[in-house]
């Protein structure tokens, strides 16, 4: 990059369209912004990303992007320029519902883990919003919904918060409700395993043997019969079914008196 694209005429010309910021990791504490790569969770060299004036990462984290041609740089620029234009439009005309909805969707899609699902849903319903944005949100929605349920639980455990058990219960119930509503994460998703386990736990808590069995079968299929948690899950399901049967028998016996 440094011996080629970053010396080219197109690079010099295009650099007027952005603020070029250079971060050199030097393993010297007196140099500027030495911890920034870690803050942005960037792990490889070289890394190129677009940021806004608040430092929010807009483009380029994953998959790693290199502006090594005019075309590649243009792809990144096009994405962020739309965002900048929309922000300006909304600032100048706060009543512009379409611009506002587009902005909500684009900004939300940048970080689905922090998104307000209801706000995004409302934005997606605004007439005049580009179809591809609505489709992208539809694909991301289930993942975002799961993350909004899962993240409070995960962070409570990470920080050993006092309310972690309550957060766990909320996550279990939330995932179970998603499963019942047919809002299932794609099994190729990186967060599918916790979703599946929490849904299973939720089904057990709700004494829903049908969904618990469904989750367990899928778990075994995806993670194998020798998975170290599988046996425990099977035992818990068997216990729940047995106790449900006891309750059933007890209630039949009770009605006969």
């Amino acid at each position, binding site marked *: *990059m*440094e*011996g080629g694209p*970053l*010396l080219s005429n197109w*690079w*010099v010309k295009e*650099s007027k*369209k*952005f*603020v*070029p*910021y*250079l*971060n*050199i*990791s*030097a*393993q*010297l504490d007196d*140099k*500027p*912004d030495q911890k*920034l*790569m870690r803050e942005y969770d*960037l792990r490889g*060299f*070289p*890394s*190129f*990303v*677009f*940021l*806004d*004036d*608040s*430092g929010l990462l*807009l483009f380029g984290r994953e998959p790693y992007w290199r*502006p090594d041609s005019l075309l590649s740089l243009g792809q*990144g*620029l096009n994405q*962020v*320029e739309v965002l*900048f234009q929309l922000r*300006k439009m909304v600032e100048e005309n706060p009543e512009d519902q379409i611009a506002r909805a587009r902005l909500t969707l684009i900004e939300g899609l940048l970080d689905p883990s922090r998104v307000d699902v209801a706000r995004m849903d409302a934005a997606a319903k605004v007439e005049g919003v580009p179809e591809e944005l609505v489709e992208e949100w539809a694909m991301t929605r289930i993942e975002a919904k799961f993350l909004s349920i899962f993240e409070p639980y995960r962070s409570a455990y990470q920080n050993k918060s006092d309310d972690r058990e309550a957060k766990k219960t909320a996550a279990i119930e939330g995932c179970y409700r998603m499963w019942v509503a047919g809002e299932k994460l794609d099994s190729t998703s990186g967060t599918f395993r916790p979703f599946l386990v929490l849904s299973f736990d939720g089904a057990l808590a709700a004494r829903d043997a049908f969904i618990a069995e469904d989750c367990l079968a899928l778990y075994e299929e995806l993670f194998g019969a020798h998975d170290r948690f599988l046996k425990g899950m099977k035992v818990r399901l068997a216990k729940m079914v047995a106790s449900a049967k006891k309750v059933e028998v007890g209630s039949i016996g009770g009605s006969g008196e």
Partner: protein
Amino acid sequence: MQKFSALRWLATLCVLLVCSVSLAQGSEEMEKRYQEKRAKKFVQKIEWVTSLDQAKAISKQKNLPILAYFTRSYAP
């Protein structure tokens, strides 16, 4: 016994001295590499900003995105 203890003290001092000298040499080498990186042709080609705070201020003023390039000088 006293002689042994003095020798041990001297050995510790030597180790500390060697460590601090090599650390100083290490950071001198890092500084040299950093300056070499900054002197590269690509850095001179356009006006790079080297502080994120400054980049944010310019971004706000000109309503332009920041293109951040993360590289390293401590290794090739």
